[in-house]
């Protein structure tokens, strides 16, 4: 059978540019004064990009209907794998204590959570797209909440805070795209806000009054209103207890986020060195492969979580602007695809995929400048890692298909 899909070239070219940029940076990340294992990883990364492009091509072939059909089994499969992972998962690198890796016979073969993100986006798009009206009350949200909640819980048990944050981001982004009103989104998010603000009684009190006003204005069902208000109270009270329950390293990371200079030798060290790398880059940077922070190993995880500081140090503000602009153009292109899609499922799927990338970029890049806590989530198309690169390109493939179908330029039934 022959497939003819009108390729969305701006999308593909942007993804290719980002990937080339990314592989170059992985190469540079390996150029250290004392050679390490990282030195040759760019070979692997190049292979992963090639594999990713191939996967993207394959992903662009099945029609959206097939994806709609496949959403449920993919989601179920993802949940099962995540569940199994809790028992057989392995740690790696800086996150050695977590169980995010799937390993067979001692060989780590990948991080299923990366592909689970796509499965969750698919399932959310299916569930939200099937509705005739957007969710208008809390009770309407039980389905999407469950869809995200199950894998989210499984991932938080690994524990992988970063991926958990990404899931929350996807959840809210897709609710927004499905037409859920702003006040409802705020009400849903309110307990989490309470949790964060619980550490300052004054701030929490102000937030609580604001919330009460919102509840009175939005007038949800009485039960829901009471539920939300009490959830906020509980969070405000429970937060300190939850704090006690956090692992010391998680506590430390949160604290260091609040003030990195408190702990310059441990967790804060990463952020400070990252900022030093970026800040010392200036306008044009120290030159490709010549960053001293990276070369002399002051920069931690310079090929994975902290690859963006390498861009900042070696290519300067210009390089950062180029990279961020490429991301922005890619995202705007994807939002356009989402806005032009013919059906709710396609539109939600496109938006879900781009919001996944967006959350990654925001958290990862924000982390390097101490605007976000260090959660250890990778930068799309840049960070070294096979599963993630594969997942990113799978997303590109799906978006190519969605773009083509949205413009009515793909054969309707191709498999």
């Amino acid at each position, binding site marked *: 059978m022959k497939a003819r899909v009108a390729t969305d070239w701006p999308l593909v070219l942007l993804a290719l540019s980002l990937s080339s940029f990314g592989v170059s940076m992985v190469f540079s990340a390996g150029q250290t004064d004392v050679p390490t294992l990282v030195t040759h990883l760019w070979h692997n990364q190049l292979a992963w990009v090639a594999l990713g492009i191939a996967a993207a091509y394959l992903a662009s072939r099945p029609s959206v209907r097939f994806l709609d059909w496949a959403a449920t089994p993919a989601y179920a499969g993802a949940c099962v794998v995540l569940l199994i992972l809790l028992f057989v998962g392995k740690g790696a690198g800086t996150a050695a204590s977590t169980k995010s890796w799937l390993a067979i016979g001692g060989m780590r073969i990948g991080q299923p959570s990366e592909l689970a993100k796509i499965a969750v986006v698919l399932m959310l798009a299916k569930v939200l797209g099937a509705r005739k009206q957007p969710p208008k009350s809390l009770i309407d949200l039980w389905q999407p909440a469950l869809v995200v909640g199950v894998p989210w819980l499984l991932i938080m048990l690994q524990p992988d805070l970063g991926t958990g944050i990404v899931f929350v981001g996807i959840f809210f982004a897709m609710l927004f795209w499905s037409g859920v009103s702003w006040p409802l989104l705020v009400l849903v998010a309110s307990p989490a806000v309470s949790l964060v603000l619980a550490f300052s009684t004054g701030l929490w009190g102000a937030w609580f009054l604001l919330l009460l006003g919102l509840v009175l204005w939005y007038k949800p069902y009485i039960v829901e209103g009471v539920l939300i208000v009490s959830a906020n109270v509980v969070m405000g009270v429970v937060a300190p207890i939850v704090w006690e329950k956090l692992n010391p390293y998680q506590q430390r990371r949160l604290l260091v986020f609040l003030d990195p200079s408190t702990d310059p030798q441990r967790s804060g060290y990463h952020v400070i060195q990252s900022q030093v790398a970026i800040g*010392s880059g200036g306008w044009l940077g120290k030159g490709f492969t010549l960053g001293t922070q990276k070369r*002399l190993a002051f920069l931690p995880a310079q090929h994975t979580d902290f690859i963006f500081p390498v861009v900042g140090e070696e290519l300067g503000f210009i390089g950062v602007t180029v990279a961020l602009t490429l991301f922005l153009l890619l995202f705007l292109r994807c939002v356009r695809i989402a806005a032009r899609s013919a059906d709710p499922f396609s539109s939600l799927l496109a938006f879900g995929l781009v919001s996944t990338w967006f959350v990654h970029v925001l958290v990862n890049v924000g982390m390097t400048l101490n605007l976000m806590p260090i959660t250890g989530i990778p930068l799309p198309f840049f960070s070294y890692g096979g599963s993630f690169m594969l997942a990113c390109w799978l997303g590109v493939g799906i978006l190519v298909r969605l773009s083509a179908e949205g413009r009515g330029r793909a054969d309707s039934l191709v498999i």
Partner: protein
Amino acid sequence: MSFHPNDVQRRGRVASGLLAATFLFLLGSFFRTQILQHAQYVLQSEENRLREVPLAAPRGVIYDRRGAIIAENVPGYTVSLLSPREDSLRAALKRLGGTVPINDAESDAVVRRYRRNPNRPAVIFADASFDLVSQLEEHRIEFPGLIIQATPKRYYPDGAAVASLVGYTGEINEGELVSLAAQGYKAGQQIGKAGIEKQYEKRLRGREGVRFVEVDARNRVVKEAGARQDISPDPAQPLYTNIDLDLQKFVVGIFGDSLEGAAVALEPRTGEVLALHSAPSFDPNRFIGGIPLDYWRSLMDDPRRPLANKAIQGRYPPGSTWKLATAVIGLQEGLVKLDDHMPVPCTGGMQYGNRYFKCYDKRGHGSLSLSEAIEKSCDVYFYQLGTKIGIMKLVAGGIALGGRERSGIDLPAEMRPIFPTAPATEYFNRRYGVRGWSSAVSLNLAIGQGENSQTVVNMARFYTALATDGSAARPQVVRAPPDRERIFQLDSVQMAGLRAALAGVVSRGTAAASRIQGIVLAGKTGTAQSGRFKGGAELNHAWFVGFAPADDPKIVVAVMLEFGGHGTRAAHIAAKIIEHYLKATPQQFLSTDGP
């Protein structure tokens, strides 16, 4: 109808707007970090990667008045270690112990240096031998933080002969680090510890240079040179002193190993210190790069106190050398003239109140003039002169002559002489109670006994005034404009008379054995009780302070032999020193101009 195209378009615009806003926010944050705070982060990144290896500046060379070298620098090696943490330093030291000898105490010292300044290489061997360095070079690869640095090392060609003057250098200690913090001293640096080295530390120090080595996050040295332009050290300017090294060595030679005491030779008009020696001495070269413990112990345990500078720190009763002070006070007050006789002639002693005061010569001197009394050093004459002057003026006059002041020599840790304060009655009342003393103290003070202990250098200063016109010159080791102070005022006849009397001491009087052929030597012997006894007899300190030639003095010499017996022994040594100086020194070198 939430997926009505209009709704979707609207949400698309909102989403695009949010994306753009986020993008701008991130870009703004990067702009702040990379452009606005660039300088601060560049500094931090440089601090991260660069370690400063100090390049010691060569200390200033110290010359004598003729350009002979007193202190210089010779090539040496410093071995130090750069470590990220204390435990890795200890581990490296342990491994190093397998290659070269390091004992536990040395290891601990290295760790202490490291703690003071972890970013500076911790010095292991401040003065490593060539053998040790070549041994380490062979194993260089095993010790990534090891830094072997050619370093100028202090060297004193004449060693012990100049130790009393030049002092020595050593590693800066905790106390000095604290007190000299403002001057930018760092742990591990060398600093002057005594003598000229300490006094002129600022001028001799130079400015330390820096070699930058590049290290990685584990403090491993990854680049030895070229990480950044080195800052070469600024050597200090040479220091020109007034020392006559030839005379200095001659003085040291006379003292030899057997004599204890001190000698100071000054140019009377300028106060230039021609020679200064405290015997026994020590070898300052052994102090460089860390003094060996056994040598330090032997110096500390030596009862002859080689580390004390007896010329400026030892205080001894001046004895008869002080009689000139009594004479000057009496002459200045108009209470006596050079040819005045005292009422009681010397019969080997005199009765004063209920006490009998002996003259050193039991046979007695008969009736003498002041000049003759100086020549013969007659105690009885000066007892009477002392009572005539009175205790008040005796003390006030002694203070005016500098008897309570340091000479002001430019060497560290000079001691202040011991002398009563004025007014004298208050002093003695305070000290002994109103009824605890009598006017008999004047008798003792008049002959340089009692509450009077002078340093050798201060006595030399006093005699520069006798040698000239009543102005005492501050003794100056390092070349500087003369600093003279008038301490008494006598007319030229009186001055000439005093000098004639002092010449008489050597030609006919107590020091007659020390005459020099062809030179008129003037001076005064002194024999002072030391308070130490041997075989039932009290040991005396032997003094001689004098100058020559008597009519146009070129040199003032003060010699003090600790427990050395009679002053004539000191006079003998002083005469030799003066003879050597005046005969061996061509006249042009007596000028005060620089080389």
